[in-house]
């Protein structure tokens, strides 16, 4: 943040308050109990996106919500174990690369961009329909990684940690 004279003289240093973990043990225990359930629901939504409402974007946002709940309750220091700050933007780039690389792979194998029929050199024993099934799954992995890590990265940037 740019040094703002008005912000320096403001009496309530709210940023420090958001950085420090909350004192109440009830919030601690409740958030540490709820967060694994949210993460589990996020993983379920992501992997069950072929059969029910859901998919990459929704599952990624749910996973990010679970991590953000821990960040809010425990403070950024204690919640570094579940997702460190330095890894977030790198994982986001990796997710976007998985998506674009799937399309590039089909181009290399002789098809059009993101035409999953041409993934048959990866899995030669599969029918074309099932190739499309696994192509969709591959793409959703990239979407989930990008959305989840980008939301956590924006939160960390906002608090400046």
């Amino acid at each position, binding site marked *: 943040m740019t040094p703002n004279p008005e912000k320096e003289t403001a009496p309530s240093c709210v940023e420090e*308050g958001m950085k420090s973990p909350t004192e109440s043990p009830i919030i601690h225990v409740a958030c540490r109990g709820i967060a694994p359930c949210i993460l589990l629901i996020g993983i379920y939504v992501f992997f069950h996106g072929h059969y029910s409402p859901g998919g990459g974007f929704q599952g990624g946002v749910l996973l*990010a919500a679970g991590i*953000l709940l821990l960040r809010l309750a425990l403070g950024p220091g204690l919640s570094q174990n579940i997702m460190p700050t330095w890894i977030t933007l790198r994982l986001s780039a990796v997710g976007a690369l998985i998506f674009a690389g799937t399309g590039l792979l089909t181009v290399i194998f002789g098809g059009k961009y993101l035409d999953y029929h041409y993934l048959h050199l990866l899995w030669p024993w599969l029918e074309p329909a099932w190739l499309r099934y696994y192509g969709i799954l591959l793409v959703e992995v990239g979407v989930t990684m990008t959305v989840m890590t980008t939301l956590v990265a*924006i*939160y960390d940037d*906002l*608090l400046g940690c």
Partner: protein
Amino acid sequence: MHWVVEFLLFVILVVAAVVGLSVRNLLAAVVTLNVFTFMTAAVMVSLGAVDVAFTEAVVGAGAVGVFSIIAVFMTTRKSRD
């Protein structure tokens, strides 16, 4: 019977929008915005678009709420105008 439920959802939607625009406390405005988003998701469910409703509920009530609350905490709590 179906139109009664939908009418109730729309009434809550409009009331939440008006309250969220007119309230002075910005934290209350954020919570009212979340109510508005959740009612939008419920309207989408009643229209039969479950995927859109899921995205709306997750993004609107999860990500946007968290980021708005952080923004309110980092700037000012009361609206001046």
